[in-house]
């Protein structure tokens, strides 16, 4: 271990540690432009200079590549240091006056800021070399390098032409401190910069907010590493070395006695309902996108802004987009009224915007819901009863200019209204998942016409299914809000546990039975049984039904040419008597 003093603070670090890292571990911030933990220090920007007190005087060194020595005395914020930084920064600002990171740094150093230049003329590359180095050292393809000398020095691919070596991994883009390297520039691979929509996931990402376990995964289909074996940026970045490209998907067979199906729902894509302009107007967004925007950790840090980055003055919330609509889904999605109220409440809290709720009926059905609705009524939210006919940007008067206009019949006022707004939030229908039928088939589950899994009985057995030991929970069974989903989930869990706890299952009582004296052993029935419950017993020369396996469908009973199989509780005699009775 080496002991040294930084800004008068004694710090102990391992041998070989750089001053930069030692300061970092002591909580002392040293500004830098070209340092990254994933690569060897390069000391190109010189911003990280610090002062070392030597016996012979004070010396300025770059902290990122100077190794700590026993007894060193370091000052990171002396006037000399700061002046040195100011000089470098002023030179860089001269070259790149618009670069945000330089300007922020200059403010911290108490410098005067230069005039901004028009964007198209502005140079933004500070020649830190991070991109060149990451491409060579980390990705290992050396697709870009410095070219030219002096004032002509720049980063470019060889001969400034499209480089075949580039694997468009985006590593250069991710390390560039000034935003000079843009992925849009990469050859043949455009990455949409999608501020508000959920957008295509990154190749390495945490699948959803609050996902369990809350860890990222790599999408091997889009990850550059899996396409080219290059990149490896994430592995280098990850200090705990958690990234392992060798891991493979595993299919794990688990024997279980009960299954709770809680596969949830999907949200309808409202772009199919073209009259609302989703996908056409950037300020027509879905409730989920709004939610992402208002999330404090979201893209806009929780601010409600339009696509132009301004605070909206009026917002329309349209209910029942795809729900309660014979053309799409006839059912009510149940959750939208209440979350629409919540959104209005949030908007009122965060902005001074006028909020319009376009509803068919307000369905505040749950505990405390009606009260919340009443509260919103007093919060000056405008409620308009009517389903909007369209959202358009075609203005017919001055006040509609530049706005989105929601036109709607206000069925309470009895008139057609056009409401100009800055933002429209749609509440799309909750749908059954596209793969629900296919998935349900694996479990012998039926689906209702709208694709939600079918419970055993709508009132008396809402969590059970037609298959014993398989239970339903949540919106896979039908649109449901959180309290209902939690309740059903709890019930499903309890039902599953009670079955597990009992440890035994009730076998079907209505099984089939072969009358040995009548069976001639023709072996017609044996293959018919889907559960392989019928076996031919050579000793007695007759087929035998294993009643533990038999589920009592009665197919063998119908097929037995000797009528030697009796389907208990559904015997031929009983059914024939029923026929006689039914046709009196």
């Amino acid at each position: 271990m080496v002991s040294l003093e930084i800004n008068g603070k004694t710090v102990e670090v391992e041998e070989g540690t750089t001053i930069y890292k030692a300061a970092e571990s002591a909580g002392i911030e040293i500004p830098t432009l070209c340092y990254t933990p994933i690569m060897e220090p390069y000391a190109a920007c010189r911003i990280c200079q610090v002062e070392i007190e030597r016996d012979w005087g004070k010396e300025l060194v770059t902290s990122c590549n100077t190794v700590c020595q026993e007894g060193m005395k370091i000052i990171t914020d002396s006037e000399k240091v700061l002046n040195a930084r100011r000089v470098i920064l002023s030179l860089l600002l001269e070259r790149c006056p618009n670069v945000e990171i330089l300007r922020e740094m200059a403010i911290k150093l108490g410098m005067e800021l230069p005039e901004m230049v028009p964007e198209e003329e502005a140079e933004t590359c500070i020649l830190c070399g991070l991109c060149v180095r990451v491409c060579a050292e980390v990705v290992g393809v050396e697709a870009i390098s410095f070219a030219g000398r002096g004032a002509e020095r720049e980063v470019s691919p060889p001969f400034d032409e499209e480089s075949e070596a580039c694997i468009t991994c985006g590593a250069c883009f991710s390390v560039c401190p000034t935003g000079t390297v843009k992925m849009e520039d990469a050859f043949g691979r455009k990455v949409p910069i999608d501020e508000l929509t959920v957008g295509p996931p990154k190749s390495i990402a945490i699948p959803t907010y609050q996902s369990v376990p809350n860890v990222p995964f790599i999408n091997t289909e889009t990850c550059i590493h899996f396409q080219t074996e290059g990149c490896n940026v994430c592995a280098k970045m990850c200090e705990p070395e958690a990234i392992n490209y060798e891991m493979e998907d595993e299919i794990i067979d688990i024997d279980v006695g009960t299954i709770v199906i809680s596969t949830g729902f999907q949200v309808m894509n409202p772009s199919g309902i073209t009259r609302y302009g989703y996908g056409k107007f950037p300020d027509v967004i879905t409730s989920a996108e709004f939610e992402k925007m208002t999330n404090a950790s979201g893209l806009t840090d929780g601010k409600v802004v339009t696509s132009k980055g301004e605070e909206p003055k009026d917002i329309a919330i349209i209910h029942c987009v795809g729900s309660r609509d014979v053309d799409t889904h006839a059912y009510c999605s149940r959750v939208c009224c209440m979350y629409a109220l919540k959104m209005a409440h949030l908007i009122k809290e965060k902005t001074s915007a006028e909020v319009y709720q376009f509803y068919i009926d307000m369905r505040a059905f749950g505990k405390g819901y009606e009260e919340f609705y009443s509260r919103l009524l007093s919060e000056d939210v405008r409620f308009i009863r009517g389903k909007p006919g369209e959202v358009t940007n075609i203005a017919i008067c001055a006040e509609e200019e530049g706005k989105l206009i929601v036109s709607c019949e206000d069925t309470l006022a009895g008139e057609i209204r056009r409401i100009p707004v800055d933002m429209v939030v749609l509440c799309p229908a909750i749908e059954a998942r596209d793969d629900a039928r296919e998935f349900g088939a694996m479990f012998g589950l039926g689906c209702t016409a709208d694709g939600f899994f079918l419970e055993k009985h709508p009132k008396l057995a809402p969590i059970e299914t037609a298959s014993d030991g398989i239970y339903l929970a949540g919106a896979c069974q039908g649109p449901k809000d959180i309290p209902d989903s939690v309740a059903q989930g709890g019930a499903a869990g309890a039902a599953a546990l009670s079955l597990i706890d009992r440890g035994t299952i009730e076998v079907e009582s209505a099984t089939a039975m072969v009358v040995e004296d009548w069976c001639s052993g023709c072996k017609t029935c044996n293959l018919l049984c889907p559960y392989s419950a019928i076996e031919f017993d050579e000793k007695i020369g007759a087929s035998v039904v294993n009643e533990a396996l038999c589920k009592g469908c009665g197919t063998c009973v119908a097929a037995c040419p000797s009528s030697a199989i009796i389907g208990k509780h559904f015997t031929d005699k009983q059914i024939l008597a029923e026929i006689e009775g039914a046709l009196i």
Partner: protein
Amino acid sequence: MSYEPKILGFLCNWCAYTGADLAGTARMKYPSNIRIIRVMCSGRIDPTFVLKAFEEGADGVLMAGCHPPSDCHYQNGNFKAMRRYPLLKKLLSQLGIEEDRLRLEWISAAEGDKLVRVVNEMVDRLKELGPLGLSKSNVEPLEESETLNIDNPTEEENYVK
């Protein structure tokens, strides 16, 4: 009184019968011409039941089960019904029963409306076909000592008593 056909329905417990239940709980209306017998699976429907139904006076028979290939609660009982159906229809037509009097339909537990449609269609078709005439109460016993007109026998009376 207008002719009201009698339809006997053999509905599988899991799909078609539940579908009929749904039609009921949803207050859908369908003709009372159908009388329903529940079986566990359409694979349980023995063609004997169908013949018995006709013998007992049904004008039409509906067999209904789960949609193939995968809706069947018993994996593939519906396939057995599907295989029996065409052969049974052929047999029935040889026995003088119009093929339309027997119908096999796949009705899921959610398709109460389909059941309603099928029953309506069957009633309409059976009204076109008219009574099958096997109802026991309909058969009037012939007089034993019916005299035949010898001098001027009708074609029928020629040889048939």
